């Protein structure tokens, strides 16, 4: 805070604002800054505030009414009579300037002194807690984070009513002054991890932090990787749940998403719904998602590789189907594939930018009309059309939206390598991807864990989710201070 003010001081020439009257004169240049003088109490007093930041109903009911009733005549009396906690009596200009910008009003009796009372009466204009849209689940809680940090904190505190839940707050962004809260459970979360997050947040020097995703990009381990290295969620129950595991949650003012870390590659393929259903169903769903990712990345490149170089691979029965579908196509497989992949990307991008109802129409027009027309026009084969559509569908199974984007992007280098060296190119590209993933870290912890480094004990909640009785320990990955989640129940009722 001090540094922010020093910066402010540097910006506004140091000789410009020296006392409160000058500050108020400066603030008056804004149209929504109100000021009035009143003599109802006998002693005249002055009130200044931003009408867009202050709750005016509260002002008249809770502040002015008691003041008039008790005939206050000094700042000390104001503090005693007004039934609002947190009233500050100060003459510190930096404090006044900072507070008036977050919904405090200035009250003073002497027009020429710096002495004044700062009364908090902020208005709260924000969205109500609503249903999650990206991570909607049929069963389970229907609450999702909103744009207010306090409400979000409330949503988590409500789920974890223990004093160990700490929220370390820091303000970043030279202009946006965004409040950021780092949440962790004292005595469980690894101190080193917390320190890493704090240090990285302190190291942010940008003018605006408009959303948590900006923070994510700024504190992420490898900024040149297309892979997200922190999970973002809009579900307070997921945030509370990973806190119990020993992870760290980052919330920020104005962002309806929480960042969770340290995370692993596999966690991006686990939906929170997996914990609401039986472990067999959850595990199957996870395996399907992982298969879907591999399918989505590899299937079009494999098509290109096979049809460009390795016809021999395909058994003769299958080959005739493929050949007859490609008979009329004038383009080599790579152009055919890129054409279709790009049209799918266009559809997706157009669908994402348009309002829902128009988006649906675009989806139908694009998906059915363009698809059928391009096959009939002989631009693409219908086998490839099926493959590309399936691959696109598969890429949408990823529960974390960001990861889905990455999956769709990394398909293109695979395509080019498939065209260059066939299957060999696909494997080389895969090696490149593997090395990249091996090098990635999430808050300093290996990203591919528990596969590499292989930690068999952490596999209990990775590719598959084992039943509850195997989940007694926290993940080794997080190096938590207390490793035991709960004692194993030795006499379970059904045994």
């Amino acid at each position, binding site marked *: 805070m001090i540094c922010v003010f020093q910066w402010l001081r540097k910006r506004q020439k140091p000789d410009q604002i020296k006392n409160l009257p000058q500050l108020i004169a400066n603030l008056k240049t804004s149209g929504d800054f109100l000021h009035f003088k009143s003599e109802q109490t006998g002693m005249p007093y002055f009130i200044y505030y931003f009408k867009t930041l202050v709750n005016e109903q509260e002002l008249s009911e809770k502040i002015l009414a008691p003041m008039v009733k008790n005939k206050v005549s000094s700042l000390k009396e104001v503090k005693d009579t007004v039934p609002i906690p947190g009233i500050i009596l100060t003459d510190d200009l930096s404090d006044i300037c900072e507070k008036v910008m977050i919904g405090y009003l200035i009250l003073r009796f002497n027009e020429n002194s710096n002495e004044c009372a700062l009364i908090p009466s902020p208005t709260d204009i924000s969205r109500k807690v609503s249903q999650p849209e990206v991570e909607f689940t049929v069963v389970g809680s229907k609450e999702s984070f909103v744009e207010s940090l306090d409400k979000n904190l409330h949503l988590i505190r409500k789920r974890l009513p223990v004093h160990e839940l700490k929220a370390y707050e820091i303000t970043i962004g030279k202009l946006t002054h965004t409040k950021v809260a780092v949440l962790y459970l004292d005595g469980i979360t690894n101190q080193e991890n917390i320190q890493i997050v704090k240090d990285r947040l302190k190291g942010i020097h940008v003018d605006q932090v408009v959303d948590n995703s900006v923070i994510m990009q700024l504190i992420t381990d490898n900024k040149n990787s297309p892979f997200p290295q922190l999970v973002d969620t809009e579900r307070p129950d997921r945030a509370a749940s990973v806190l119990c595991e020993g992870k760290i949650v980052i919330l920020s003012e104005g962002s309806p998403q929480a960042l969770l870390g340290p995370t692993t590659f596999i966690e991006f393929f686990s939906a929170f719904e997996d914990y609401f259903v039986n472990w067999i169903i959850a595990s199957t769903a996870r395996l399907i998602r992982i298969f879907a990712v591999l399918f989505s990345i590899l299937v079009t490149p494999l098509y290109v590789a096979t049809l460009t170089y390795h016809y021999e691979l*395909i*058994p003769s029965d299958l080959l005739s189907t493929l050949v007859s579908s490609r008979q009329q196509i004038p383009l080599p497989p790579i152009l055919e594939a890129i054409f279709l992949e790009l049209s799918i990307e266009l559809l997706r991008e157009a669908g994402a930018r348009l309002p829902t109802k128009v988006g649906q129409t675009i989806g139908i027009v694009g998906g059915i009309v363009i698809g059928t027309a391009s096959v009939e026009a002989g631009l693409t084969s219908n086998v490839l059309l099926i493959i590309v559509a399936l691959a696109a569908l598969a890429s949408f199974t990823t529960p974390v939206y960001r990861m889905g984007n990455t999956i769709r992007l990394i398909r293109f280098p695979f395509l080019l390598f498939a065209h260059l060296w066939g*299957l*060999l190119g696909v*494997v*080389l590209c895969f*090696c490149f991807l*593997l090395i990249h993933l*091996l090098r990635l870290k999430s808050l300093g912890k290996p990203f591919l864990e528990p596969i590499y480094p292989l930690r068999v004990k952490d596999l209990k909640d990775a590719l598959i989710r084992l039943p509850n009785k195997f989940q007694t320990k926290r993940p080794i990955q997080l190096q938590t201070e207390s490793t035991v989640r709960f004692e194993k129940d030795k006499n379970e009722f059904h045994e």
Partner: protein
Amino acid sequence: MRDAEVKEQHKISPFLVFYLVHTMQVGVGVMGFQRIVTKEAGNDAWISVLAAGLSLHLIIFLMYKILLKENGDIISVHKNLFGKWLGGFLSWILIIYFIAMSITVLRTYIEVVQVWMFPDLNKWIFGCVFLLLVYYCLSGGFKVVTGISFFGVVLPFYLLLTMAFPLYHGHFRDLLPVLNHSISELYAGAKGASLPYLGFSTLLIYFPFIKDPAKSHRWAQGGHLLTVFMYVVVMVATIAFFSERQLEKTIWATLTTWKIAEMPFVERFEYIGIATWALVILPNMCITVWVAGRGIRRLIKVKQRKATIPILILVLIVNGMLTERGNIDLLNSSISEVGFYMTYIYIPLLFLLQFIVYKVRKLQ
């Protein structure tokens, strides 16, 4: 020996030595070692393979004895026993051996690809891309190298299942009569079988990077045992599948056996096999180049990155200049020869020498 210290955060768990040892052995050798072994030992080749494998357990044991006594890598051992100049000379020979090994691996793989998949593959461009991949891996440090070794073992492991096809079609009577070859023939076969086993000697350099090295001993032995098992299976399948005369003319017997693999959605499995083999070759290249770079770093005071780039360029150039089949074969057999003497003669000698020197120093 401040330079020899390895920071704790760069060290790897002892069990990962399993993968490092195993992946270094399974490289290009396994694609066609059968012809060389059966040339000498005929249908008893699998005994040669087994014998060579088992004898190497002893060599690994000796290596661990040497390194644990020194508590450092082979370069420290050399310096300690032979002094700065002679020791340094020996270390340089070792480094050149590792560089030559990486050249052999890459060139042989490219040859396989040229013969089986793309006859007009440009070895300069392919080598360049492959070495860039190696460099990308190496710049992540030894942990990433170990990671890629891990995946280089786990992911292509399914290829072992394809040995079911030649086993299914094979004639096991070909294995009979057992032991109809003389000891000297078996020995010559075992010598021929040593190339696919070599490579674990890279352990001599990365040893200080292992956390709790004494514990890693059994993992190293385990990794080697898995290789022995795999090779014996492959050898038995090959003997059963090919006739002796046919095998004489088959340079890459393993690849030939893949040709008969038949699944409802895929035929001509060797394309998939050879492509997947890139995943096996990559850790081989990474480890050898890393080890050479690390060795140079220890000998002259340069950053490992600065040592690695010239090595990669050298590998690329030599790789591009080797064009004829005869040269590649010569490179393979000479590396095999050098490796054979290094493991079977030099390591035991070094062990003895170290033993004596330590005894003498203790007496003084």
